[in-house]
């Protein structure tokens, strides 16, 4: 395949290609036919492409991001605050709130009563990582994960907050993290896109997802995340019309190719040759994607590990299993979203359900990757877009309360490629309201991820409308404390 591309490329004699060759990209990105820049000879694009590559030896080759959309409360997951028990119902001291802006949902509240966690915590693993009883399976992998309790953001509403996490900017329009990775590193698999997106939904109060979260912004649309969906058409228009055999499809493609070849000979437009190649890639995807989705080669023990839901298309568990299969196949960035984590009320009840959806499969993914030797170069991230307030929103009982959005501190965990396992990083105050030690801003988080992927976040840039853009905008510091 590489030879074919090279030949076409030589044939069409694009200067940009030669310049790439001279720098040695040939060995790197040609695997991704999904990078159109190879064909377009867009010098601008290429100029920005190369500086991103191999600034350091990468510790991770790929990312699986388990996004918990809606924002799970840190107080019921990973930020254990035993002292709150004694302060049940007391007003949150103004010295702690420090005038932090509130959303329109609680800014009118006259009281801000402290709501301790309904669920208990236990310590797990060699370092005694605190994890709530909602997540017994994640507890079992405590030695493999790094809990960060001091993520913080500026956004206090879902849309800007999740957009910030994924694109580095609160307003939409910039490329998402996965698009940057596709653009900077390409795909390792010539039969699958570099960036794939899977969604699922729990029963908890949910917020929508938006195509711009996996959009390519001002990068070529080829870098946008490709949705992988449960059901018979996992990739849009993948399936041939009913009854068409593979041989018939092949025959038809040969007809199209012959006509296009003829057109190329007459018009001499290299774009026509590129089109022939893209049809070939499409054809290969028609085989590679169904193979990917077909779980019959998964052993019973694997199914048991992820839980029975992993055989039900469209569930979080099924998506976790697919994520592993995508990682095995070298897909650069696998983005999962699980909706339903927005507990403004009825939190204990709803969080229990949400946790049940994700606990076993999240842990299984880590275990499974580890067993297969993939965890060492796969970076796994688990978390939402912000945290939740220590004070109660709305109705308040010991076993029923809600929490509003909280940007100043929240917890996520990371595991795998280049992450220091078994630690808890960062400290928050007794109320889980402010960061006391080792804050991690979203841009720091993004800078660190890029570093683990071998990219200097200040150098992977794209010039758009005269400005050099990067995922971390104008800030971002690497967090060595979480790196192995």
């Amino acid at each position, binding site marked *: 395949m590489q030879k074919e591309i090279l030949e076409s490329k030589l044939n069409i*004699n694009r*200067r940009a290609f*030669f*310049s790439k060759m*001279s720098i040695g990209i040939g060995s790197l990105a040609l695997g991704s*036919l*999904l990078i*159109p820049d190879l064909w*377009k000879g867009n*010098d*601008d694009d290429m100029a920005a492409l*190369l*500086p991103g590559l191999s600034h350091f030896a990468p510790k991770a080759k790929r990312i699986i991001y388990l996004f918990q959309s809606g924002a799970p409360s840190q107080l019921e997951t990973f930020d254990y605050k035993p002292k709150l028990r004694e302060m049940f119902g007391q007003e949150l001291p103004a010295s702690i709130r420090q005038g932090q802006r509130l959303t*329109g*949902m*609680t800014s009118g509240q006259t009281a801000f009563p402290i709501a301790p966690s309904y669920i208990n915590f236990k310590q797990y693993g060699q370092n005694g990582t605190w994890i709530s009883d909602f997540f017994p399976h994640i507890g079992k992998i405590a030695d493999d994960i790094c809990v960060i309790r001091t993520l913080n953001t500026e956004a*206090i*509403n*879902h*849309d800007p907050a999740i957009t910030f996490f994924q694109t580095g900017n609160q307003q*939409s*329009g910039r490329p998402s993290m996965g698009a940057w990775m596709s653009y900077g590193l390409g795909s390792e698999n010539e039969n699958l896109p570099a960036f794939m997106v899977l*969604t699922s939904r729990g029963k908890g109060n*949910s*917020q*929508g*997802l*938006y*195509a*711009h979260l996996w959009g390519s912004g001002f990068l070529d*649309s*080829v870098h*946008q995340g*490709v949705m992988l969906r449960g059901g018979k058409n996992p990739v*849009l*228009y*993948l399936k041939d*019309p*009913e009854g068409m055999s593979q041989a018939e499809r092949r*025959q038809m493609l040969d*007809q199209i190719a012959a*006509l*296009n070849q*003829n*057109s190329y000979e*007459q*018009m*001499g437009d290299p*774009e026509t040759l590129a089109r*022939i190649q*893209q*049809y070939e890639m*499409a054809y290969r*995807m*028609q085989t590679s994607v169904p193979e990917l989705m077909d779980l019959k080669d998964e052993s019973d023990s694997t199914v048991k590990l992820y839980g029975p839901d992993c055989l039900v298309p469209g569930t979080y568990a099924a998506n976790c299993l697919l994520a592993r299969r995508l990682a095995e196949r070298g897909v650069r960035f696998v983005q999962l979203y699980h*909706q339903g984590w927005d507990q403004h009320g009825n939190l204990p009840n709803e969080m229990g359900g949400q946790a049940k959806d994700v606990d076993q499969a999240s842990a299984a993914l880590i275990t499974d990757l580890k067993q297969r030797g993939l965890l060492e170069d796969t970076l796994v991230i688990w978390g939402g877009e912000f945290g939740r307030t220590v004070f109660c929103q709305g109705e308040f009982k010991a076993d029923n309360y809600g929490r509003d959005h909280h940007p100043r501190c929240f917890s996520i965990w990371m595991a795998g490629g280049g992450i220091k396992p078994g630690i808890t990083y960062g400290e928050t105050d007794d109320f889980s309201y402010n960061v006391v030690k080792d804050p991690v801003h979203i841009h720091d988080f993004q800078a660190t991820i890029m570093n683990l992927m071998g990219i200097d976040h200040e*150098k992977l840039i794209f010039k758009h*409308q*005269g*400005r050099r853009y990067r995922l971390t905008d104008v800030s971002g510091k690497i967090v060595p404390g979480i790196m192995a």
Partner: protein
Amino acid sequence: MQRGNKTKKHWLWLAGLGAISSIVLLSECAKGPDALGTALPDVVDFNFHVKPILSDRCFKCHGPDAQKREADLRLDTKEGLFQALEKHKDQFVVVPGNPEGSEMWRRLIHEDPDQLMPPPNSNLSLNETEKTIIRRWIAQGAKYQKHWAFILPKKAPLPKVKHENWDSPIDRWVLSKMQDLRLQPNDREEWPRLIRRVCLDLTGLPPTEAVMKKFGADDSPANYRRLVDYLLKQPTFGERMATHWLDVSRYADSHGYQDDGPRTMWPWRDWVIHAFNTNMPFNRFVSWQLAGDLLPNPTKEMLLATGFNRNHKITQEGGVIQEEYRIEYVTDRTNTFSKAFMGLTMECSKCHDHKYDPITQKEYFELFSFFNSVPEVGLYGDISAVSLADPPRMYIHNATVRDTLPFINKKPMDTAVVMIMEEMAKPRTTFVLKRGQYDAHGDSVERGTPKSVLAFDKKFKADRAGLADWLFSPKHPLTARVFTNRMWMEFFGTGIVKSSEDFGNQGELPTHPELLDWLAVDFRDNGWDVKRLIRQIVLSETYQQSAAISKRKQEVDPENRYLARGPRMRMSAEMIRDNWLATSNLINPEVGGPSVKPYQPEGLWEDTNPGRGPLMFYKQDKKEKLYRRSLYTFWKRTAPPPFMLTFDAPMRDYCTPKRTRTNTPLQALNMLNDPQMLEAARWLAANLLKKTGNGETAVSKAFERILTRSPESSELKQLLAYYQARRKELQSDKNRAEKMLQVGEVAQAKGVNPSECAALSEVVQIIYNMDETITK
């Protein structure tokens, strides 16, 4: 990776200079970037050669942004370039004629990394060629020029060229540049291909059968002119032009942020189509959109036009802070105004002075203040609200349509509520927002415009109407250039200024600056007549050339910036789908009306919806609504039509004047398996079979219908062989054939043989998938 840039800059030098020893240079160029070191211009031009380097590598710290300016040195102004050094008043940044005596040059080549500029830790550097350009510029006297796009355009005397027919102003400028590069134009395109090109360009649709009948036989220039005039009168012209304007205007049928409820802006879209079809002068077209409500005695039509400034996203997320989002909306209007009409990226100066262009943060908010007095709030109603048209708004009743707005395609039914602009009786005070933050008020500002473009004279009224007058003032350097360049881009694929959204210091330089200026002045001086401008473009010999690419032209000018061949590019998403509908005669030619929901893969809205609101589920339309032109497809911003995104349409979140053009496997899958295509294929097959009564004849007819030309004998031979083989196979599998004819909702035509029809529909699918079919 400066090499790639070198290559490109090299072309800019050619553009600016024209007459360098082209032959030698071009052959050097084809050898690869390493040979480019020799490609130095003899006479260095500040705007074309020097400033792009200064802007890109130096302005970030020594440019317009006063906050970030280092060493109190700025290189973006004449004063700054020639000023004395802060610490050594006897020394100067640039000493004309004396590179060694110029601090700028000394710093560029300094051996001490602490003295070297740009500093190594900036990740910026100059290559040898660029350094030599700076040196040569200083040596040649360091002549300074204002930024080219901020100088008022003038018509330069037309160049003399010798070529039969190439004597229109467009052709003379294009040919003169070609001759500098020793390129020869192509011959005229073959007549059927030319008909197809101009139909697609002017109407977004392939030639109708009526057009072929009327114009197909006579390839004379006079007949071509008649064809162009005919097409410009078709209602499909307005639809085609509106498609571009919807991108510029970030038009959508939903609010956009997370709950993403529906809105009713389609009457505004109908007005855009109407405006293009009635050839509304561009200055009026824009002035009404900007300020229809503030003009004397505004009509309902003028009010409706102002919907332009309400097309931005609007949140419905409970709990947002009102002012934060209201400021977002005003920001969007300000950014859209500058990008859409002036090709300036003002958004950079919301948080700080612009890094590259002479626009201060204060000036940003002076412009912002024009759009800051709309009686609106950040969050008006959540997803459960009855009307999702946030005030200010207008109500369009059946009587309104009948009496005053007849171009709105509104079925007698509920009142349509459209968001429009309104000005508060007492304008809000506008403050500079520090770091762009909604609640960090700095000094208050008065309404105004960027002085480097054109100061806001007192004679203009200090409201949006005055702003529109300012935009169309004969002294405005940008408005006409930006629009004529966009129109050029629509027809040639790339603008004369490639960065059609950025005419600032970081934008690209024009390949044909005199031509751009000629077009701009001519457009302005002839009443901003859009159809006239387009007519000039498509009647040029430049446009009519064959698109065939010789090996040499591919080497010398791979992007066809110098137009020694006709334009050739993949069609837009809308054109590809409309082409299926039109060639199969499934198309529903209705103009305007509420947006429609054609076929879409199941579950796309359901997978990601917020669990509430009227747009949770995609409810596909039926019957004739399935066959409306693509610009009428319902645009839900958080889940746009997948076909559109796959074929490079923007998300419509923001003003996007230029689309990218990619070539991907997902496009191939879409082309092969979209039910809209499969249905069109079987429908065309059935009708041709009925008409011809003969499968073999029908193969040839299908080819002609789709590609507007007869198949070559080799093409025909191939397709016939395939058809006959498939017919035979399908005759032994009648069920299969029947099944193939069931895709889509249109009833299968009666009285055709299923295996013949199925085999023929496969042939049509092949033709629909040809590169030539989706290329214009």
